[in-house]
């Protein structure tokens, strides 16, 4: 019965072929290939808990007087958004759990995107042909951060209201268009009454739809271009070694979905997050000290804090101070991040396709740059807690702030070279260094000392073997003539698979490509 129904559907829609291909898709076994799935599954949890929350949340800034179960707010004026979040937390069954799971899942979502991106970056997974997927991923990160901020702002509590105020000021700091843009987005001057309904539509409809579409494209490209993989275990540039989707990977990944959901639920049940009833409703002239954004905005907050109070006047117009840390820094950050695959290809003169990942230690150049840049953002992240750290460590706030100004320059300068050296050590690939020679110290009959340098003996000098050119690896152009790369004969590491072909649509540079049909 089911068989015949299935056949009936399949005859018309022809789903068997595609499904068969999908079920046979091979997933590499290495655990680091599951990192993106943490993000995927926390997004699923975000959608599910978010739907629950949207049933009770009222996106309105209408002033109401609260008469609910939380006594310290009884009779207080507040926005409907805040009142409904309080009711959702205290009067709706499982409401608080759902809200806390939603918030923890958001923290995990952005965190796992960053970790996933680090894995891709440090193993070179973004190299040709996967530049598109890298760019999609960076956009997903930006959207996730932005949507997180919007969601954080929705309850309209004292702490998040302060965050919206900062966001408004950062927008205003944009030269020329800033004040127009800010009033356009906020529907008038700050705070107005439009911001919560607008943030709500962005948060629950527009941005999630874009995120979901981009995730679809991300996974579609993953299936189309196939996985990268680490060398070894029979992996070559032209195959993918691992478990098939059915039955192994499907079990693994579904189990993993439940594990991620379990972690989120455990955090949501056991650890309180964003207790807005302790913060009170947002009133523009009320402010609490120690207000921080969620961690993924922390590096921006830290940048605002460590930025010296320079007021730069550029031909007659003051550029507001918040422009540099608030707009220029994230602008440069995400532009560089998106352009990185192309930049690296240009700098390294590497336009080959890569299916085999690099061990981070085998590319100390990239690894050390990545580690240095990452450490810079870590320091900025730490700087968003200057007041908490000063209070905790009982040090003057000014000292902490100046320390962070120094650290955000010093730490990357230390982390970079140290990472480079560690990579070399891990490679066991010591660069030739000056070897120590014996010295003979002589004492003359008069009592004077002199040093005689000993002649070099065999073994003192490190022998460096010249790279062995491999015939099969020489690049050929469309006519099959060998081409020499810029630096002479090309050598390819052991991980790269053999093979030569004219490729499709080879450009004038005559690059060696593996035809798609061979993978």
């Amino acid at each position, binding site marked *: 019965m089911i068989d015949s129904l299935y056949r009936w559907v399949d005859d018309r829609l022809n789903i068997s072929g595609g499904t068969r291909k999908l079920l046979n898709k091979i997933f590499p076994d290495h655990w680091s290939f599951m990192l993106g799935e943490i993000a995927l599954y926390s997004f699923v949890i975000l959608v599910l808990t978010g739907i629950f929350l949207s049933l009770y949340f009222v996106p309105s800034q209408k002033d109401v007087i609260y008469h609910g179960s939380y006594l310290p707010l009884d009779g207080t004026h507040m926005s409907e958004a805040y009142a409904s979040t309080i009711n959702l937390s205290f009067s709706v069954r499982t409401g608080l759990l759902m809200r806390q799971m939603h918030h923890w899942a958001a923290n995990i979502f952005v965190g796992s995107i960053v970790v996933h991106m680090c894995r891709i970056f440090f193993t070179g997974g973004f190299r040709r042909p996967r530049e598109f997927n890298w760019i999609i991923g960076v956009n997903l990160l930006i959207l996730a951060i932005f949507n997180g901020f919007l969601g954080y702002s929705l309850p309209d509590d004292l702490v998040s209201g302060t965050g919206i105020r900062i966001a408004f000021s950062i927008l205003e700091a944009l030269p020329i268009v800033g004040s127009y843009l800010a009033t356009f987005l906020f529907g008038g001057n700050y705070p107005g009454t439009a911001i919560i309904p607008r943030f709500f539509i962005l948060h629950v409809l527009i941005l999630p739809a874009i995120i979901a579409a981009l995730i679809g494209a991300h996974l579609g490209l993953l299936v189309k271009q196939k996985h990268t993989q680490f060398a070894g275990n029979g992996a070559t540039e032209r*195959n993918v070694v691992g478990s098939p989707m059915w039955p192994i990977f499907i079990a*693994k990944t579904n189990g993993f979905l439940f594990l991620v959901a379990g*972690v989120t639920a455990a955090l949501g049940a056991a650890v309180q997050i*964003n207790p807005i009833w*302790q913060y009170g409703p947002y009133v523009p002239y*009320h402010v609490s000290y*120690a207000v921080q954004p969620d961690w993924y905005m922390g590096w921006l907050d830290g940048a605002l804090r460590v930025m010296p109070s320079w007021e730069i006047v550029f031909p007659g117009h003051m550029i507001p101070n918040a422009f540099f840390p608030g707009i220029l820094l994230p602008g440069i950050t995400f532009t560089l991040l998106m352009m990185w695959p192309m930049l690296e290809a240009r700098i390294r003169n590497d336009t080959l396709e890569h299916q085999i990942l690099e061990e981070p230690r085998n590319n100390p150049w990239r690894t050390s740059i990545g580690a240095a840049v990452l450490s810079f953002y870590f320091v900025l992240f730490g700087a968003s807690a200057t007041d908490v750290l000063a209070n905790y460590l009982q040090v003057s706030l000014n000292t902490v702030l100046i320390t962070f100004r120094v650290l955000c320059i010093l730490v990357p300068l230390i982390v970079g070279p140290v990472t480079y050296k560690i990579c070399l050590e891990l490679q066991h690939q010591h660069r030739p260094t000056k070897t120590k020679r014996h010295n003979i110290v002589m004492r003359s009959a008069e009592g004077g000392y002199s040093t005689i340098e000993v002649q070099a003996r065999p073994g003192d000098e490190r022998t460096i073997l010249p790279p062995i050119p491999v015939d099969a690896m020489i690049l050929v152009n469309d006519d099959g003539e060998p081409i020499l790369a810029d630096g002479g004969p090309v050598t390819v590491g052991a991980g790269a698979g053999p093979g030569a072909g004219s490729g499709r649509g080879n450009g004038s540079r005559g690059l060696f490509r593996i035809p798609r049909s061979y993978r």
Partner: protein
Amino acid sequence: MGLRLLRKILVPFAALVLAAAIATIAMGHTHSTTAASTPSMSPEAMQLASLASQTTKGQLAEGYQLFAAHCSFCHGTRADGTTGIAPNLQGLGAGTVDLWLSTGWMPLKTPSAQPENKVPSFSPSQIRAIAMWVASLRPGGVPLAPKLDLKSASLSTGFSLFTLNCAPCHTITGAGDALADGYHAPPLHGISAAQVWEAVRSGPQNMPIFGDRNITPSQLEDIVRYVTQKIEHPQNPGGLGLGGVGPVAEGFLGLFAGVGACLAAAYWVGDRTEREEEEDPHGHGTDHGPEGPETAPEGAHA
């Protein structure tokens, strides 16, 4: 003239030491009318009367002895700061002295930007004796916290006033935070109702003084109720409160416990499959099919 009259009326009713103390107060009274800067919390005649009724001869003597032994080295034997290394305490009131001693701020352990909360060096009755003796030197200042009627105080008014007046430094959860130049607003946990009252009225260190025309006595009771009930015993129905420092602690926990646990789960799941591989090599494949990489181009049957 009025001084002598006052003395003539009081002497028959009071013991010699007490009379001497009150004479000092009365002299201080004439001084304080000229010194407008001295904060005055209640009608001074009432203060005199209440001081006289609260204080006993033995208490003043004990206060004087304790002050001479522990405080006078810096503040001077008359608590007037003539030593030049510590401020004049005359006219600050018993409430101010009580706050500084009961929090353990005084005596200072080390001269620092801001004294730290520590275990008080004196017993409550000793603190009261010192406070009364200092207050007896000159009227004015902040009296000891009165009996507060917290049952009828309003939590929501207290919350709102706390947000407006206290949260800008002490944070909205009362966790305390660092201010500029090594000063900090201390956490509001583990303090008594009397200390909250005295701190608001006397404004220790960087804290502003909130007089009773700024925060009325009943409003202050609301604040004291909110602080002693909700700040010191916060409602954390959501689980661990994480010290009330907000997204910093939450972010660290989200990254290290949340993402960390997911990473551990990924490692566990990934590791399982790899171990399985050793037992069951047939469960695995490569994307090029059974024939081998060279002979099975994927695109061929796509």
